[in-house]
């Protein structure tokens, strides 16, 4: 049994040594499946987008504590049918890291949610529309930082027909004559 364990250890060590990888092996930030939001023509609705920062990493919040730091920012592409409104970012967490124990950085870790306000025009045909954008972030771990990345994102917006506005009946005068 000991022999097999030793073999397994040797193989794993060899693999780890050979890999000699540094930094993240995949994207540090990912977008969780965005819900399909149903919006009525002409109405504004926030679309919640949940992002995940991989374990062991942090990214700057939208309002980092230093001008030198690159804020996380979502850029949503304008469409002809849907007006893109305000993007609301969560507050970051003030955290200290091993490389600067006396300094507090305002960061996102784990899951964080960004709301994007969308308002389809009244004239838009009902149906499903895709909205695209990019999340710019710059990640670090306890030992190193990684160049800024742009994560492409997209979410679906289902546009429903607005109820027709009630037609106001003109007041009828009993004395009115046509």
């Amino acid at each position, binding site marked *: 049994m000991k022999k097999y364990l030793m*073999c397994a250890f*040797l*193989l794993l060590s*060899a*693999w*780890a*040594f*050979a*890999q*000699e*990888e*540094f*930094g993240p*092996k995949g994207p540090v930030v990912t977008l969780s499946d965005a819900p399909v939001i149903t919006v009525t023509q002409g109405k504004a609705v926030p679309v919640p987008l949940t992002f995940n920062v991989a374990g062991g990493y942090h990214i*700057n919040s939208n309002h980092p504590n230093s*001008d*030198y*730091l*690159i804020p996380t920012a979502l850029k949503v592409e304008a469409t002809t049918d849907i007006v893109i409104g305000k993007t609301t970012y969560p507050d970051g967490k003030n955290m200290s*890291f091993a*490389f*600067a124990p006396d*300094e507090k*950085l305002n960061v996102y870790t784990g899951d964080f949610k960004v709301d994007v306000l969308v308002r389809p025009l009244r004239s838009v045909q009902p149906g499903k529309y895709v909205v695209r954008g990019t999340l710019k972030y*710059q990640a*670090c771990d306890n*030992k*190193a*930082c*990684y*160049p*800024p990345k742009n994560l492409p994102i997209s979410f679906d917006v289902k546009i429903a027909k607005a109820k027709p506005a009630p037609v106001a009946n003109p007041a009828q005068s009993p004395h009115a004559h046509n």
Partner: protein
Amino acid sequence: MVKRNPLILFFVGALVAVMLFAGIRTARNNRANGPANGQLMGATAPDFDLEALDGKSLKLSSLRGKAVLLNFWATYCGPCKVEMPWFVELQKEYGPQGFQIVGVAMDDASTEDIAKFAKEMGVNYPILLGKEAVGLSYGGVNVLPTTFFLDRNGKVIAREFGLQSRSVFVDHIKEALGPGSSERAQK
């Protein structure tokens, strides 16, 4: 005494070799552009000519004869900020022995911001404005800080990714300077 089956030993050895080979191949394939950092070890450091913060340009090969610490960093990089005061001290300490630190700023910040940052950190060595092509020639520089140590002939003798302890830098600097460098400096 336990008798070891030579066939099993051979099998385990072969398996370890295959895993090593496969691992190295995977790691190399994972690196998108340029030579892998590891491939630079023992090779002459790729030459470049970059503009410094003072407006003058600096060619790496013009530093032949000196041991060089080539540090890729960025203003947004917290761990890089930790190393900079050490570099200031190390430049003072080992500079007279023929040692030169060169910083290459690899960010999109304006020259003014980089200069302001360098001034705040009291940097006493040249800071060059990095270009992507230079980064690619050094294996992509996807980790900051990334530091290369060049001997007096311009050969890469060591490289470090991410924040290291000060003693690691000292060891590599001594190795880059070569034996008897302190005695040479005193003469």
